[in-house]
């Protein structure tokens, strides 16, 4: 990482499988860069302080709040957003399950819920419905789609 300006840093990341490189303000969050620089608006800025989970993305397969992660700290990492989850036009199994279970109403929290679920299934920490709910509690849904979200994740996990 080299300093270009006093308050800018050079960052190289893989975003949805594509190498991306550029200068970002040192105070910029990963969410700022994804939305404002790369035009990937699937991750939402809803609370801007790590309380709602609408900005959840995967970094090196771990789910994180992009609004609390400095962009500069993601140098060299692999980022996956909702835009990069489908493969060759095929929805990810979690995405398909969300559609099948009506696991969304307004859809604003949905990218975060889906990426959080993808991350969670990789963690192996959700062993039953109660632990799944507990482990998904970092993602708020104001419409109240929670039961269908959990049903969708269970369905996809069993598949």
């Amino acid at each position: 990482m080299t300093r270009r300006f006093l308050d800018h840093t050079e960052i190289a990341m893989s975003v949805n499988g594509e190498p991306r490189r550029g200068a970002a303000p040192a105070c910029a969050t990963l969410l700022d860069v994804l939305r404002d620089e790369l035009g990937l608006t699937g991750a939402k800025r809803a609370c801007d302080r790590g309380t709602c989970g609408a900005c959840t993305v995967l970094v090196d397969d771990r789910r994180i709040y992009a609004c609390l992660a400095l962009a500069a700290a993601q140098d060299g990492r692999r980022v996956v957003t909702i835009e990069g989850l489908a493969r060759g036009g095929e929805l990810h199994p979690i995405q398909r399950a969300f559609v099948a279970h009506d696991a969304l109403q307004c859809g604003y929290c949905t990218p975060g819920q889906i990426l959080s679920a993808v991350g969670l299934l990789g963690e192996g920490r959700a062993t039953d419905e109660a632990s799944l709910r507990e482990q998904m509690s970092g993602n708020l849904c104001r419409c109240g789609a929670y039961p269908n979200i959990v049903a969708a994740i269970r369905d996809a996990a069993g598949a």
Partner: protein
Amino acid sequence: MPGVVAVLTHASAPRIASARLPLLLQDPAVCFAGQPVAVVVAETVTQARRAAAAVEVTCEASAAITTMHPALDRAYAPRSAGHVATDSRRGDPERAPRPREIARRYTTPTQLHHPLEPPFVVARWDGDALVVHTTTQAVFAHRQQLADCFGVPVERVRVVSRLLGGGFGGKGRAWFPYLVLCAMAARHVARPVALELTRAEMFTLIGRRQETIQDLRIAATSHGELTAITHDTVAPTSMYGEYADPTATVSRVLYACPHVATSHRLVRVHAPQPNPMRAPGEGPGSFALESALDELAHELGIDPLALRLRNHTEHDPHTGLPWSSNQLRACYRVAAEAFGWAARPRQIGSLREGRHRLGWGMAGACYPVYRMASHAEVSVDPARGVVVRCGTQDLGTGTTTILAQLAAGALGVPLGDVAVEIGDTQLPEGPYSGGAHVTASVTPAVEQAVHRLRHQLIERAVADPASPLSGLAPERVALTGGTLTGAGRAEPLAALVARTGGLACTAHTAPDPEPRASSYAHGAVFVEVAVDPDLGEVRVRRICAAYACGRILNPLLAHSQLVGGLVLGIGMALHEATVTDARSGRVVNANLADYAIAGHADMPRFEIALVDDDDPHLAGGVKGTGMIGTVGIAAAIANAVFHATGRRIRDLPIRLESLLG
């Protein structure tokens, strides 16, 4: 500062021509902590925020009343309570026989809509033409108001709201001043301007569910026949606006009771203006009424469900009109059976599971059927197929799906083949999104338009010598599965349209101005809670509820709406409260960590039943499902907590500290 394009204050902002609503930067008075006093336009969001933080404000302090509690003696009667009368009176409650009586005070706190999507607007002027893209629940109402404010013809204003990330009431009237602010700034700098609120700003700038103090007095015979109800509410309103939630609706109509008086009073405070939030009035009002009924049942030694059934009313006792339909008894029966209510022990605190005390509680619910006039257009053309156009919005409730479904069903084409255009004032005028009335309002209009289209397509086919159906009587032709058939002959709709060209039909429907029946959706909700006796923690374990909401167009969407309403009710019962520092008037917990809303881990097991409710009086038969889930649930939870612990919590939310000590 770098990037700053303009700074507008009350001194420099352009004057707004007409304002039926309170607007910003039009006068120097500050009415509440958090009120915007300047708007900064800059090249980037970061520059704008930095510059806004650097604005220095000088103001003269004057005495402020930030909460209603020290000023209750100044309560006054507002012009109305929501859509209904401020006061009501039937019989003579003061002189009614009161063999047994309870008189209790219930309170509910200020709550906030908090759609997950923050409100947003982009405004662009082209001469005197204004285009506004925004997150509004009411494109047509806002177009008219913008035209009035800027003194331009209404045809020169376009408002677009294609997708909404929830609203719950927070993207209606309260959001409008920001459309004006953004359009004003865009005109001032002669460039497009975008304005977005932060989550912290959403705690003061897009309205709130007003807190309430509700006094309930219920009298009954020792057998549980209600003889008198009085329900009096005091709530705050701002210094610059007036709004009262209709908290007493449920007390006016839910039970057969000869003597009922209700009132709504407001106290002016230096705080943000309250506005409707999901199940406005009926949500908090049913907490008080249905808690009081439970208290009465306990006092009389009657089962809470039996008490309600004993006082069921066969007509609307408030207006004297018959019900358009009322399946409340069926709701009670279906939900009680699913829950297993018959096995409920009378003894308080007798249900245990390990260290936890379990409690069972229930409540009844109703919500008025509101509907608006609506236009709709349904068309079919060779290029796009079937298109439904209606200038309403989709909050995320499924309005788009419903519109497509209505056309697809009537034309016999696959759902995926129907395109829907909504959320734009260039479309036929549709209703605003709120009060659970969109589906109820648009269904008759869309069905009428589709009916006309179908009729005209058949007429066209039988009159066309090139059609295999040529010469048939129109009534012998059917349109199913996207094909016109009759007398053993058939022609695909697509072929007819390809040959003869497109066709569009419109319809306009309006609610009956003098209905001869009273229309409400009804419901019954049964709840099991588990209370940790050492920590005071309350968990909702399961909810069995049944609802009668007229015709259900899409059971999956209806189920999601009802569960969503119940989830908000769980938040109302156990989590949500805005804390205001009385001295400064500021919201202390202005973030989603300190203003807790229900999350995944708070979810119980849901069992929701939709009861058949065939309403012969309502055109289209739809009553709406968006609101009623939030009615009754908070009381059912509080009643379950009483059953578990013997503690009667009359002040929401029910938290650890409510049950400890």
